[in-house]
């Protein structure tokens, strides 16, 4: 087991990392994939020192504090900031527990789990399964592939350009915006109280769709969808194409908008040609 106590900007590298866990209060934590030696760059640190432990391939980075009391003290003085960047193998699972800190994660293919209260979560090209939870922080992502689970109370969720196998998103008042392709047999489940939901799907999408809202407006740009007369609230549902995937959106008062875009097929074919 190797252990470091870090209280100034530095760089540490490690033999091999099979899992990463970081508990940081304020600042920024970035995780990048690299096939070189795993490295921790500490570019800014204030407040408690960082405790870095590397044991049996598990890399753990924790800003030391004594229990909940320590957290409270930290919350009262959020000027303390720690900025770290960690490079690990791309398939390394990542767990980040943050308070006001932001998280930036790019290119990882393993399991990614991020919790932050008021920090923002930025995901780019993450192909593993993702679990992101925030209270007020925004979750912004592009180029995702695979399975995602997003929860936020008032933070906005946005996913641009991605391929979804499973997407589950819940918010109380946060807006939910997605522009993704659905894999065959993909499952999408979105729930919100008052957040606006705006989704765009390719024209050729094959999915069973159900959009329901108690009081919010529903608009859908697909011809295959029809309005259901329901005793309560309103619903737009139907089957697009063969109905391979499923899409459920449920809101209390948030508006739901489903848009379509031209198919990426033509572009895809071109891309495959080049290989």
């Amino acid at each position, binding site marked *: 087991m190797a252990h470091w106590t870090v209280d100034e900007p530095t760089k540490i590298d490690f033999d091999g990392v*099979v*899992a990463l*866990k970081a*508990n940081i209060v304020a600042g920024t934590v970035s995780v*990048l*994939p690299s*096939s070189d030696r795993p*490295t921790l*760059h500490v*570019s800014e640190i204030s407040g408690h020192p960082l*405790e870095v*432990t590397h044991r049996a391939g*598990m890399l*753990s980075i*924790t800003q*030391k504090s004594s229990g909940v009391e*320590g957290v409270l003290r930290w919350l009262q003085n959020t000027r303390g900031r720690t*900025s770290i960047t960690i490079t690990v193998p*791309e398939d390394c*699972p990542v767990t980040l*527990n943050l308070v006001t800190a*932001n998280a*930036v994660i*790019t*290119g990882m293919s*393993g399991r990614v789990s991020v*919790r932050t*209260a008021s920090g923002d979560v*930025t*995901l*780019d090209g993450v192909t593993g399964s993702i679990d992101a*939870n925030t*209270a007020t922080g925004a979750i*912004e992502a*592009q180029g995702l592939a695979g399975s995602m689970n997003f*929860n936020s109370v008032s933070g906005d969720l*946005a996913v*641009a350009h991605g391929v979804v196998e499973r997407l589950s998103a819940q918010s*109380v008042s946060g807006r939910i*915006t997605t522009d993704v392709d659905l894999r065959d047999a993909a499952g999408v489940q979105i729930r919100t109280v008052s957040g606006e939901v*705006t989704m*765009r799907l390719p024209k050729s999408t094959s999915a069973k769709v159900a959009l329901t809202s*108690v009081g919010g*407006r*529903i*608009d*859908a*740009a*697909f*011809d*295959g*969808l029809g*309005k259901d007369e329901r005793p*309560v*609230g*309103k619903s737009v549902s139907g089957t697009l194409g063969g109905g391979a995937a499923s899409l459920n959106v449920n809101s209390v008062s948030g508006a739901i*908008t489903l*848009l379509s875009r031209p198919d990426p097929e033509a572009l895809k074919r071109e891309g495959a040609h*080049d*290989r």
Partner: protein
Amino acid sequence: MSPVFGHGRLRLYLLKLLEESPRHGYEVIRLLQDRFLGVYSPSPGTIYPRLARLEEEGLVTHEVLKGKKVYRLTDAGRAELERRMDELAELEDELTESVRDIAREVQEDVRDTVRSLREELTHAAREMRKQGPAGASQNLKESTQRQKDEWRRQKEYWKDQKRSWKEEWRHTWEDAWATATGSQDDAARVKMDRALRKFVEEVREASQDGLDEEQLTRTRELLAETSKRIRAEILHTDD
């Protein structure tokens, strides 16, 4: 696109990658993505013409193996690389130092994308409502008793939901502050996860070209048996 490559540096880096070993174009692209932490993803349209140019200049040559062009460095290419060794070392240094900048760039890039996506979708939604396509539904004005009940039901659901989130947050805190390091148990679970993922990927890839009913049935049987045996013989959780 990241500004890491200016002034013919991509060219230099291509030579370096081919010096390590002969490679085909797609491999070069993948290695570049790797090296630039997924931030710089060169398209085939960027790389192939450059490889062709290097070939014209006599710095690389190619042979066709299994239908793929495999590029290798020529002596002239090696000499060129030798001559620019200092520049290459400098480039490597910058790449290492730029890790932090890359993270910042990723953040800005994703923010920009999300911002413009929101604008685009807002605009598209407005257009759609103007045209009023089939399926677009209008606001219902009436409010019935049943509607009120539905509101109440939804409110209850979210109250529960909030409670469970709060609970979860408490657990997160205990997690975050009590456990500084992962245990052996965690490490094993991680490895198990990885093995399972690899298995799924392999089988999915192998079955990409379609399955008939019989293949599907046999696969199912085999999977069920495997799962049962793992649980009973190895994990002893089957009852």
